[in-house]
C-alpha cells in the first residue's frame, strides 16, 4: 500500500523547517541590515588600533621670515624596567647597554641604572628625554631590544634670547608666557587620530591605515620685529646697562608710518631655550609690563598739547629761572642754571622744568586729560601684550596744584616705554596716531592670512602742531650740548632727553631713570626710537645719549633711510 503524501507529520516537518528558515532570515536581516553598522564598528574595534598623530605648532617668524620659534621633533627613550632587568644575555648585559646609552646622551650609566632599579616591577620608565634625531639614531643602532623611542614635539628658539622677552616660552603642557601664550589660538596645532588594523600577532597590517581625524598644523605668526635690528638693539642696551650698572634697560623702535614695532628690547631678558633656569623676574617683557615716570621725555608732549590747544607757540616767551616758586604748588627747580629768558623752544633745549610747568599750567585740566588719553596714555596699547600695563595718569580730582604742574615734565604720572614710543610716533606722523602693531599676521596651515584688528588711527594733534614740535626737537638735538654724542651725519634728527627720579614709598630717591627719545629724519619722519635705563644712583640722561645715537644710526642704516636734505629751521631759544 502506498502511503499518502503529506500527512500531519509531513506538514509539521514543513512548518518546522519554515519556522527555522524564517528565524534565520530574521536574524540575517537583523545582523546584515538593522544592526549592521554597529556590529561592523564592534568588529573593527577589535582589530583596529587608534594612534594619535601630532600637528606641528606654528613657527614665529620676524618681518623677513627669519625663524624665531620653531617646532621640532625629539625622542624620549622609554623602557620597561621589568622586561629590561629580565633581559641579561641578549645583545650584551644591561650594564653594557646603559653604558652605550650614556655615551650617546652624556648621562652617567649608574644614574640610568638607578632609573631602572627604582621600581624593578614597573613597566614604564623614561631613560632619556628630548633626544635629537642623531642621538636617537645612535641609540637605535645599539640594537638594545628593550628600549622604545617615543616621538615628542618640542620647541626651539634658534636665536636664543633674541626677542625672548616678546616670544615667551612653552611649558610642558601649555604656553606659559609672551606671544606663545597670547597668540596660542594662531600657533596651536590640533592633534589628529589615525587608526590601523593589526593582525593576531600584533603586526600592523599594511594599507589599513585610516585617518579618523586629520592633524592640523598651527599657523605661522609673523611679527613686525626685525631680527637683525632686535639683536643689535639688545646688544647695545646690554652694553649700556652693563657700563651704567643699570638694573634694567629697555628700548623701542617704531615705524612712524604705521605704528609697527621694529624692535622692543628688555635687559635683562631670558633665553626661552633655557627658561627653566631663568630668573622669574625676567620671564616677561618689562617694556610692556612696568611703567615708569618718564621724566623730561614727556616735555614735547606737554608742548604739543599747549600749542595744539592754542595756549602757546614755539616762540612763547617765558621767564623760567633755575628755581621758581609756584605758590600752592611749591618750588620747582631745574637740573642746571641757564638764561631765564627762554622761549618754549629754549625750555625744551635746556629741559627747563620751570618753563614746562608754566606751559602745562596754561592748559585747562580737562583738556589736558583728553589729550593724554588721545596720545594713548592711561590705557594699554593695541598690542595688548600679556601683562601689559596701562600706565597711570591721576584722575582729575587728584590733580593737586603740584601734580598738575610736575606732570608737565613727566613726574607724578607713569607710562610704559611703548606708550612713550607711541606718543613720539604720533608727533612724527603729523599728529596721526597709528595703533601700535607687534603681530603682522597669522598664516593658517591652509594658507589663509588673518591680520589682527588693531583699531583705527586717531588724529591727536593737528599736523602743524606736530611739525612745530618736531622743529623744536631738532633744536634740542642741535643745541643741547651733546652734539658730539648725538650727531648722525647726513640726517636731521629730533630728540628729547629725560632724567627722572624714582619714587619709592612716596619719596623720591637717588635712583633714576634716564631716557632718550627721538625721531628721524626730521624732514621726513620714518622711525621713532626710545631708550631708557633704570639706574640705582643719580645718573644723567647724557649717559645714554650715545646709546640712542647708536640705535638710531643702526635703524637709519639698516632700513636704508634716505639722508635728509635742507637745513634745520632755526628757532630762537632765548629772548
Amino acid at each position, binding site marked *: 500500500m502506498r502511503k499518502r503524501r503529506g500527512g500531519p507529520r509531513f506538514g509539521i516537518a514543513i512548518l518546522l523547517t519554515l519556522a527555522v528558515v524564517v528565524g534565520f532570515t530574521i536574524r540575517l536581516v537583523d545582523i546584515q541590515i538593522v544592526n549592521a553598522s554597529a556590529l561592523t564598528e564592534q568588529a573593527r574595534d577589535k582589530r583596529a588600533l587608534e594612534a594619535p598623530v601630532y600637528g606641528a605648532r606654528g613657527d614665529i617668524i620676524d618681518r623677513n621670515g627669519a625663524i624665531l620659534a620653531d617646532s621640532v621633533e625629539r625622542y624620549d627613550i622609554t623602557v620597561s624596567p621589568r622586561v629590561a632587568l629580565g633581559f641579561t644575555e641578549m645583545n650584551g648585559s644591561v650594564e653594557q647597554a646603559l653604558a652605550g646609552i650614556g655615551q650617546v646622551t652624556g648621562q652617567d650609566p649608574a644614574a640610568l641604572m638607578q632609573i631602572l632599579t627604582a621600581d624593578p616591577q614597573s613597566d614604564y620608565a623614561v631613560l632619556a628625554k628630548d633626544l635629537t634625531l*642623531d642621538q636617537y639614531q645612535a641609540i637605535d643602532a645599539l640594537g638594545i631590544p628593550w628600549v622604545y623611542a617615543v616621538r615628542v614635539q618640542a620647541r626651539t628658539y634658534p636665536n636664543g*634670547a633674541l626677542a625672548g622677552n616678546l616670544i615667551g616660552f612653552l611649558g610642558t603642557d601649555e604656553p606659559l608666557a609672551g606671544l606663545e601664550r597670547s597668540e596660542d589660538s594662531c600657533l596651536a596645532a590640533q592633534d589628529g587620530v589615525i587608526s590601523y588594523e593589526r593582525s593576531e600577532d600584533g603586526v600592523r597590517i599594511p594599507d589599513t591605515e585610516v585617518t579618523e581625524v586629520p592633524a592640523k598644523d598651527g599657523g605661522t605668526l609673523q611679527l613686525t620685529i626685525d631680527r*637683525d635690528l632686535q639683536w643689535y638693539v639688545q646688544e647695545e642696551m646690554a*652694553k649700556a646697562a652693563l657700563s651704567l650698572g643699570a638694573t634694567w634697560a629697555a628700548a623701542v623702535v617704531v615705524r612712524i608710518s604705521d605704528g609697527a614695532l621694529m624692535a622692543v628690547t628688555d635687559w635683562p631678558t631670558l633665553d626661552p631655550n633655557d627658561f627653566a633656569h631663568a630668573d622669574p623676574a625676567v620671564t616677561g617683557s618689562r617694556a610692556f609690563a612696568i611703567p615708569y615716570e618718564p621724566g623730561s621725555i614727556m616735555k614735547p608732549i606737554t608742548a604739543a598739547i599747549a600749542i595744539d590747544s592754542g595756549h602757546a607757540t614755539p616762540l612763547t616767551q617765558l621767564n623760567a629761572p633755575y628755581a621758581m616758586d609756584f605758590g600752592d604748588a611749591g618750588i620747582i627747580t631745574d637740573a642746571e642754571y641757564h638764561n631765564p629768558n627762554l622761549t618754549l623752544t629754549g625750555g625744551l633745549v635746556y629741559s627747563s622744568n620751570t618753563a614746562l610747568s608754566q606751559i602745562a599750567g596754561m592748559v585747562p585740566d580737562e583738556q589736558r586729560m583728553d589729550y593724554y588719553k588721545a596720545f594713548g596714555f592711561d590705557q594699554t596699547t593695541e598690542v595688548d601684550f600679556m601683562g601689559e600695563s596701562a600706565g597711570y595718569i591721576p584722575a582729575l580730582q587728584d590733580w593737586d596744584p603740584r601734580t598738575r604742574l610736575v606732570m608737565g615734565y613727566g613726574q607724578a604720572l607713569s607710562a610704559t616705554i611703548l606708550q612713550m614710543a607711541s606718543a613720539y610716533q604720533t608727533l612724527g606722523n603729523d599728529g596721526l596716531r597709528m595703533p601700535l602693531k607687534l603681530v603682522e599676521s597669522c598664516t593658517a596651515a591652509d594658507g589663509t592670512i588673518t591680520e589682527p584688528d588693531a583699531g583705527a588711527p586717531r588724529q591727536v594733534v593737528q599736523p602743524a602742531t606736530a611739525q612745530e614740535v618736531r622743529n623744536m626737537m631738532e633744536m634740542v638735538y642741535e643745541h643741547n650740548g651733546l652734539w658730539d654724542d648725538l650727531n648722525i651725519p647726513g640726517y636731521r634728527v629730533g630728540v628729547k632727553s629725560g632724567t627722572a627720579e624714582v619714587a619709592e614709598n612716596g619719596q623720591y630717591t637717588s635712583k633714576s631713570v634716564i631716557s632718550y627719545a627721538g625721531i628721524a629724519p626730521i624732514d621726513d619722519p620714518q622711525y621713532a626710537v626710545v631708550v631708557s635705563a633704570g639706574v640705582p644712583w643719580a645718573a644723567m640722561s647724557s649717559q645714554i645719549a650715545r646709546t640712542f645715537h647708536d640705535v638710531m*644710526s643702526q635703524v637709519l642704516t639698516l632700513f636704508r633711510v634716505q639722508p635728509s636734505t635742507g637745513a634745520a629751521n632755526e628757532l630762537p631759544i632765548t629772548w
Partner: protein
Amino acid sequence: MSLTSPIPLARPRRAEPERPRRLTEVVTTRTQRRARPRVLHALVAVGGVLAIVGAQLLLSIAISGGAYRISDLQEQQRALTRQSEDLREQLEIAGATQHLANAAAALGMVPAGSTSFLDLSTGTVVAAPGIPDTVGCGGACNLVPNLLTAHLPVVLPKASDGTTVLGTPNQTVGATAPDAPPASTGIPSPVTH
C-alpha cells in the same frame, strides 16, 4: 575498536529490506548516453576553478606585496622627512644671529659705525666717529645669550695646508672677556683672491 575509545561508535546501519527484482529494465538510449557529462568537462570545470583560485592567489600576493612596498616607501619617506627637518633645524641654529656675529668677529670683523657719506660738493667724507666699544668685546660680546649656539664651534677660514680650523666655542662675556679682535691694527682677515 575498544570500548574505551572516546569516539562514539557509529551505529551499524540497518539492513535494507530486499525488494523484489523488477522484470523490466529501463535502458538508456544512445542520445541519452551521449548527453551524459564527460570526464573532460569535469576536468575543464575543475581546472578552471583551480586556475581562477590560483590567479586570485597570485593577484592577492602581488597586491599585498605592493602594499608592503608602499608601506616601506612611506616609512622611508617619513625617515627622510625627519632627516630633512633635522638638517633644517641645524641650519637654523648655524644661522642664528649670535653664531653669525661670533663667526664674523672670529674673521676679524667689527661692528660698523655710523653711515658715512661722500659729499660731492666739498669732496669730503662725512661721518661720525665710530661707536665706542664700552664693554670691550668687539663684535663677539654675546650679550644676547643663546643656549643653542653656546657650544657651537666657530669655523675659521681654511689654513694654508687646506685643513679646516675650528675655533673655540662661543663664549659669553664675563670676568674673562674673550679676546676682542683688534679694532684698528692688524685685523686678521681671510686671504682673498
